[in-house]
C-alpha cells in the first residue's frame, strides 16, 4: 500500500490509500478521516471516506491547499500507529433474492448484459463457480459484509465481503448501465455489493430486493427518525434470505411503522479477523443473535 495524495481542483484533496481494495486500506482510510474530523481543521468542509481512499473538501480562502496537504500527511503518520479496531454495529438485512421486480427490470435490459440468456444471479453464480443459484445465495448471505463507503447517490452503501480474497465473489458490472433500478435493489459490481437507496440508473447486477428502507427524507420508520440516512462506513451487515410471504409481511410492517431491523453493537479488530476469519465471523453472528 502506497498512499498517493493529489488535488481535486482548488477545493479538494483526494487521497488514495491503495489502488486495490482491502480491509487494511479501508481501515486506514477510516482511521485518517476520523483523525481529520477530530482535528477540526479550519477550512475543512467535507470529510468523505471511501473504500480504499478518501476525499477532503476545503475552502482555500481559509487554508492554503499546501498547508492542508501537509496536515493530512502528518495525520496519516499517526493513523499508521493506531490499532485497527472499531466499535460498530452489526445489522441483519432481509433480502428477497430473485424477486419478481428486479427480475422484470433485468429482463428489460438484457441487451446491455454480458449473458442475455441468463438472469443476473444465474450469471454471477456460474462465473463464480457455483453449481446452483441456491449455493450462490448461501455464499452471498453466509458471511458478513463491511459497509466500506456510503455514496454515489443519497445513502447508498457499498459493502465488502468479509472472507479471504480467494472466496470473494466478483462480478463485472453491466456492459452499459441500465436507466432503471428498483428502489432497495441488492446489487453487485466488481467486489462490492450495494443497496440502491433510491430508484434510478445503475450498472450493478441485480440479485434481489430488501423491504427495508435505508433512506427516507420523510423519516417515517423508527430507525430513520434520528437521521434520514441509515448506513455509515464501518457498519457490518448480514444478509438474511427471506421468501415472498416474509417480504410482504416486512413491507406491511414498514408501512405501519413497526419494522425494526435486528441491530447489535459489536467490537471489531482487524488483526483478530485476519488471524481467524471464520472464528471472528462466528463471534459476530453470536453477537447478532444474542438477546
Amino acid at each position, binding site marked *: 500500500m502506497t498512499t498517493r495524495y*493529489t*488535488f*481535486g*481542483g*482548488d*477545493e*479538494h484533496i*483526494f487521497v*488514495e490509500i*491503495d*489502488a*486495490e*481494495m*482491502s480491509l487494511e486500506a479501508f481501515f486506514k482510510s477510516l482511521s485518517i478521516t476520523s483523525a481529520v474530523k477530530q482535528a477540526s481543521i479550519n477550512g475543512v*468542509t*467535507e*470529510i*468523505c*471516506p*471511501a*473504500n*480504499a*481512499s*478518501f*476525499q477532503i*473538501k476545503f475552502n*482555500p*480562502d481559509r487554508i492554503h*491547499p*499546501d498547508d492542508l496537504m501537509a496536515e493530512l500527511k502528518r495525520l496519516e503518520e499517526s493513523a499508521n500507529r493506531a490499532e485497527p479496531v472499531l466499535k460498530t454495529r452489526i445489522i441483519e438485512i432481509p433480502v428477497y433474492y430473485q424477486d419478481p421486480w428486479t427480475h422484470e427490470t433485468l429482463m428489460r435490459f438484457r441487451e446491455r448484459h454480458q449473458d442475455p440468456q441468463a438472469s443476473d444471479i444465474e450469471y454471477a453464480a456460474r462465473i463464480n463457480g457455483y453449481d446452483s443459484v441456491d449455493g450462490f445465495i448461501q455464499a452471498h448471505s453466509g458471511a458478513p459484509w463491511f459497509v466500506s*463507503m*456510503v*455514496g*454515489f*447517490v*443519497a*445513502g*447508498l452503501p*457499498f459493502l465488502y465481503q468479509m472472507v479471504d*480474497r480467494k472466496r470473494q465473489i*466478483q462480478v*463485472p*458490472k453491466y456492459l452499459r448501465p441500465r436507466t432503471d433500478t428498483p428502489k432497495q435493489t441488492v446489487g453487485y*459490481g*466488481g*467486489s*462490492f455489493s450495494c443497496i440502491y*437507496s*433510491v430508484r*434510478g440508473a445503475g450498472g450493478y447486477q441485480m440479485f434481489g430486493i430488501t423491504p427495508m428502507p435505508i*433512506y427516507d*427524507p420523510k423519516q417515517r420508520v423508527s430507525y430513520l427518525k434520528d437521521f*434520514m*440516512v441509515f448506513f*455509515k462506513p464501518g457498519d457490518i451487515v448480514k444478509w438474511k434470505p427471506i421468501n415472498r410471504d416474509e417480504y410482504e409481511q416486512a413491507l406491511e410492517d414498514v408501512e405501519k411503522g413497526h419494522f425494526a431491523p435486528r441491530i447489535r453493537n459489536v467490537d471489531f479488530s482487524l488483526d483478530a479477523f485476519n488471524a481467524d476469519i471464520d472464528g471472528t465471523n462466528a463471534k459476530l453472528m453470536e453477537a447478532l443473535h444474542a438477546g
Partner: protein
Amino acid sequence: MPVKVINAGLATTIQDLGRPGYYHLGIPLSGAMDRLAMRAANMLVGNSEDAAGLEAVFMGPELEFTQDALVAVTGADLPPKLDGEPQETWTAFAVRSGQVLSFDFLRSGARAYIAISGGIDTPMSLGSRSTYAIGALGGVDGRGLQAGDMLPLRDGNQVSVGRTVPEKLRRGPGSHVELRVLPGLYWHRITEAAGAGFFDDVWKVAPEADRMGYRFQGGRALTFVDRQAPFSAGSDPSNITDACYPYGSVQVPSGTEPIVLHRDAVSGGGYFMLGTVVSADMDLIGQLQPHTKTRFVKTDMNGALAARRHRAGILEDIRAALA
C-alpha cells in the same frame, strides 16, 4: 400571499446556495449551478445572498403574483415580461399583486435565476431549500416546480426599484468557452499523447447536460497506460476501485466522452478522473447550452487560486455596486 405557478417551464427548480456537509453520505451540495448569478439576483431585490429563488433552464416559468414584490432575473439572457411588457434582466423591477411574470425565448446562456423579495419560503431540508430531485430533498415536496404549485414567500426588505448590476460585471458564455482544468487525481492513467490531445481538441457540450454533470463530445478518445487491473477496480482501463468524486472532476468512462460533475454530483463511483475544473469556472458551466464549443485549458494550483480571487473580486464589485 404566495406565488402561483401557472406554467413551470422546462425544468424549473427552487435553489439557494446549497446543502454542504452531507457529501460523505452521497447527498450533494446542490444549489444554484451559477452561484454568482443567484447571489446577484438576491442582492438586487434586497434578500440575503443565500435566500431561495428559482433556477429556470432554457425556458422560463409563468408565475402569478398574489402580493406586491420586487423581482430580479439574472444569469442566462432570458427576457422577463410583466403582463406581456418586457423588463430588464439584471435589474430589480416591481410586480404588483395580480400581475403575471412570463419570459421570452432564451437569447444566450442556459440558466436564469429569478429572485423575489423575501425569498421563497418552502420547508428547509438539511439546512437548505435547494431541490435535489434524486434524493427527493428540498424544493416542492422534493421535486421541481409543477403547474398549480403555490410558492410561499418570506417578508422582504424595503429596497428601491431599478437597481442594476453594471454590464461589465455580468458574465455570460460566448460562442467559444474555455474551462480551466487542474490535472490530477488519476491523470497518470492516460498516455502523454492522450493528455495533450485532451487539451488540444475542441469539444462540444453534449445533449446529456444537467445538474448532475455536463458531458462533452467530439474530441479524440483517450488512450490508457497499460496496467494489471487492481483487485476490485474492474477490467475496463477507465475503471478504478470505487472512490469519491470531487465537484468539477472530469471523468472519462471508457476514455470517450468526458463528464464534468456539477452541483448535484454523484458523490463517488468507479471511473478514473483526469483532473478537476477549477472552482472559478463552475458557474460558467451552468450557462453552457448543448453544442457549445469548449476547450479545456490546463492550469496549475496558482492559476486556480488566482482565478478564484478574480471571481471573488467580481462578487465584491457587485456587492459594492448594489450597497
